[in-house]
């Protein structure tokens, strides 16, 4: 698992793998008897392209490789993040490994129910929003109130 912030991405563990090296375990600040703690690797990795400016990026893992989406659409910009190396933005920022397209989704895409509501009522008709900071879609199974059948709910959190 990874924790991300404005300056990069850092691997974290609840259960530290035997082959992990150079990690630090951080205990709970409050309360007693709480055994939940977090182990981190004390260095952050980051994207290094010139386009990688700002924060609230969307990181994701595909084929065991970490990517970061620095712009969600028009242009859509994605680049790989080397999580095995410490962030060295100042020396590597001229290396542009990003992939960009100017395509937008065929179907309207909104990052919140509020935006979708406004669009349905004609107040906001853009094909999608450029909000960033989405945690990513998490698949949750919830029971249908009427039938009791399990439904799939995709949840994301945007800033």
């Amino acid at each position, binding site marked *: 698992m990874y924790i991300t912030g404005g300056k990069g991405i850092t691997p974290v563990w*609840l259960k530290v793998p035997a082959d992990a090296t150079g990690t630090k375990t951080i205990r709970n*600040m409050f309360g007693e008897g709480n055994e939940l703690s977090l182990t981190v690797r004390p260095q952050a990795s980051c994207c290094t392209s010139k386009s990688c400016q700002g924060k609230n990026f969307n990181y994701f893992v595909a084929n065991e490789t970490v990517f970061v989406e620095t712009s969600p659409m028009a242009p859509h910009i994605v680049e790989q993040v080397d999580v095995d190396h410490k962030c060295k933005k100042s020396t590597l920022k001229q290396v542009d490994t990003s992939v960009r397209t100017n395509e937008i989704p065929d179907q309207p895409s909104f990052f919140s129910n509020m935006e979708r509501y406004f669009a349905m009522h004609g107040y906001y008709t853009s094909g999608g929003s450029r909000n960033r900071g989405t945690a990513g879609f998490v698949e949750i199974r919830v029971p249908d109130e009427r039938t009791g059948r399990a439904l799939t709910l995709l949840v994301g959190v945007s800033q």
Partner: protein
Amino acid sequence: MTHRTYYFEYNPSLVRLPASQIPELPGGEQAVYLASYRVSEIHFCLKDFKGQMNPDRLKRTNDEFLGIALLRSDLSVITDATVDLRKGGIRQQDF
């Protein structure tokens, strides 16, 4: 005069725990999700409370912590913790 620091939680994220990261919990509790959130004294939740705007506090580094919680399949909290990532060498201010 004394003043208190009020921490608030925001910027929540939720992930399904990978099989390798599901901890053994007392009572056989089964954690399914991990929630993370920012725990910070920088907020306007109490904008009328002057103690939060004490100039002495604004001069120094703000308190920024990370909250984590283990959740059951129905999203109820099993246990939670607040950690200071600076103790792990992480200097990010926001999460």
